[in-house]
């Protein structure tokens, strides 16, 4: 399918009709402007139509403006299913890096106070936060300690001295997902991730010092409510996930679902979409195991944030409180969550798969911290280390997307193409000349993450705003980046 074959619903929404392919239960909708739509590879449309075939799917298979091709769902894919009517859960609709997500930490520091210190700060963060393949965290989680961590998530970290109680209030699900079932997690998954908690990982995972410049604030009132209350304020963004624990849980259940889905009469065109009804033995087991991985990811980001606080406190010889190191919010990208949404005029409990997409609750919705209730849920959109990121907010218009929006800028080039076009060391040098100090565990990996390998984040956020999926609050400019 080519972009020209899609039906234009609005300037920011295009539809693949239900009759486009046999087996589609609902239409697929792609949120994008014309330019972004043209830049999407054909596999995005094919994968979106595959998602439209999931048993129990409601309304539409959706793809956000940062959508690009992956496996199973496209990255940026969203699907809500009705578990009461055979709705399924699919690891391919969540991704292997379960609860890969982003958190944003505000500081009371300004660019003037930090500019001369970016390089040593980034160097210290690089030394303190384990990054790259083979890096081990400072704590090893095994046995009952792991069970507890998988059940409590970020709460476990706070109870063990890695953070403060207030942090939990500013995480999706308060950093502790209900319904985690450690018994559903295999020995292999426990072993594989045992040393990786508190590590950044690699690929597009990063830790970045950013500045919110006055010119980049588009909604001053909401920015202030979120804690951006001074010109040239410094923030720190953390992007990581559930590490190998999540990867193995997804792998285990992908295989299990492949072996049982026929029993449930499920036959989908992509085996990566292997699934089982949520309310089946296998579906419930995966849901319990996935929630464990969600909690491990919350815990991971909490531990990393704790190290960031330590580095800043040590460097500036002030306490985290004196430096105003306050968590703005922590969002999940790769999850399936039971949420209440309005269907046919009434509330219904749906399982919303988001793979490379962010929940974006509107003002007044349950699940948002009290302090943010009048404004909406903070949505943190991670861009490339060259071009910047965004802090956005959920809007009431996003009900059509089950209150989901973009998670990043979205890849434009494949990893191989990016490596052919960019050189990691040259990139580090050129970014250094622009005042962005980079430390990386892999220069080859750095090339894959060059700004030119990604879509224009301003365009992507603009399209998300145009489609009513979220609204921009502040543009965040990179100053220093630790790349996994």
């Amino acid at each position, binding site marked *: 399918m080519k972009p020209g074959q899609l039906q234009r619903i609005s300037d920011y929404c295009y539809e693949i009709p239900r009759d486009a392919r046999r087996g589609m239960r609902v239409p697929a909708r792609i949120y994008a402007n014309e330019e972004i739509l043209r830049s999407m590879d054909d596999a995005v449309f094919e994968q979106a139509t595959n998602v439209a075939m999931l048993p129990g799917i409601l309304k539409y298979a959706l793809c956000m403006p940062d959508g690009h091709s992956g496996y199973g769902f496209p990255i940026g894919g969203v699907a809500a299913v009705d578990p009461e009517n055979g709705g399924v859960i699919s690891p391919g609709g969540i991704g292997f890096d379960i609860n890969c997500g982003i958190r944003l930490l505000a500081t009371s520091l300004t660019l003037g106070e930090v500019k001369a210190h970016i390089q040593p700060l980034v160097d210290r963060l690089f030394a303190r936060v384990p990054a790259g393949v083979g890096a081990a965290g400072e704590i090893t989680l095994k046995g009952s300690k792991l069970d507890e961590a998988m059940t409590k998530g970020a709460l476990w970290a706070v109870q063990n001295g890695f953070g403060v109680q207030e942090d939990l209030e500013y995480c999706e699900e308060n950093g502790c997902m209900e319904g985690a079932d450690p018994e559903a997690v295999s020995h292999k998954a426990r072993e594989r*991730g045992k040393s990786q908690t508190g590590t950044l*990982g690699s690929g597009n995972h990063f830790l970045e010092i950013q500045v919110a410049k006055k010119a980049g604030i588009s909604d001053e009132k909401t920015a202030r409510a979120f804690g951006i209350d001074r010109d040239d304020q410094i923030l720190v963004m953390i992007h990581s996930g559930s590490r190998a624990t999540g990867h*193995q849980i997804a792998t285990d259940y*992908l295989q299990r679902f492949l072996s049982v889905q026929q029993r449930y009469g499920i036959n989908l065109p*992509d085996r990566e979409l292997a699934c089982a009804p949520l309310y089946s033995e296998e579906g419930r087991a995966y849901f319990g195991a996935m929630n464990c991985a969600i909690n491990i990811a919350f815990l991971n980001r909490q531990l990393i944030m704790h190290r960031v606080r330590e580095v800043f406190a040590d460097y500036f010889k002030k306490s985290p409180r004196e430096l105003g190191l306050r968590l703005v919010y922590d969002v999940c990208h790769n999850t399936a969550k039971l949420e209440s949404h309005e269907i046919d005029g009434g509330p219904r409990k749906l399982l919303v798969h988001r793979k490379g997409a962010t929940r974006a609750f509107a003002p007044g919705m349950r699940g948002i911290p009290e302090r943010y209730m009048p404004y909406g849920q903070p949505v943190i959109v991670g861009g490339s280390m060259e071009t910047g990121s965004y802090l956005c907010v959920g809007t009431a218009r996003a009900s059509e997307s089950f209150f989901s929006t973009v998670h990043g800028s979205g890849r434009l080039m494949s990893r191989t193409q990016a490596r052919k076009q960019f050189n990691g060391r040259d990139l580090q040098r050129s970014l250094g000349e622009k005042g962005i100090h980079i430390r990386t*565990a892999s220069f080859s*990996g750095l090339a894959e993450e060059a700004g030119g390998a990604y879509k224009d984040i301003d365009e992507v956020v603009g399209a998300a705003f145009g489609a009513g999926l979220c609204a921009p609050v502040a543009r965040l400019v990179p100053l220093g980046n630790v790349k996994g």
Partner: protein
Amino acid sequence: MPFETIEDVTSADVAVRVTGRSTGELFMSAGEALRAIMLRDPGRPAAGTELSFELRAVSTEMLLFAFLEELLFHKDADSLLVIPSMVDVEHGPDGASLRCVAIAEPIDPGIHDFIVDVKAVTMHRFSVARVNGVWTATIVFDV
């Protein structure tokens, strides 16, 4: 080269086509491809200990999946790069099985220049087939 990157399958991840004259050779090629995706200069094993394992699956295809998954498991659980030196695959009425002898090399950032980490083997377009006497597999790795 017993493997090639396929460009039009996925932009977020990495797709490869691997070949071999036998299933054993195909599995060796797949292991080599996995290492080449992760490392800038895979080269030969530097130093390590011998490791062997056996696996069983319902089909050759699922055996390849399990084999690659085993290599990934050791990378994360034990910080070891497992480099197969011999893979012996047997096919029976109940499926397929293998015995692999490998060199297990401790991951050392001073020696190993990683491009990316491979998180998982996906089932997206995953296939194993014998065409004109050559075993061919398509694999999409999540990175």
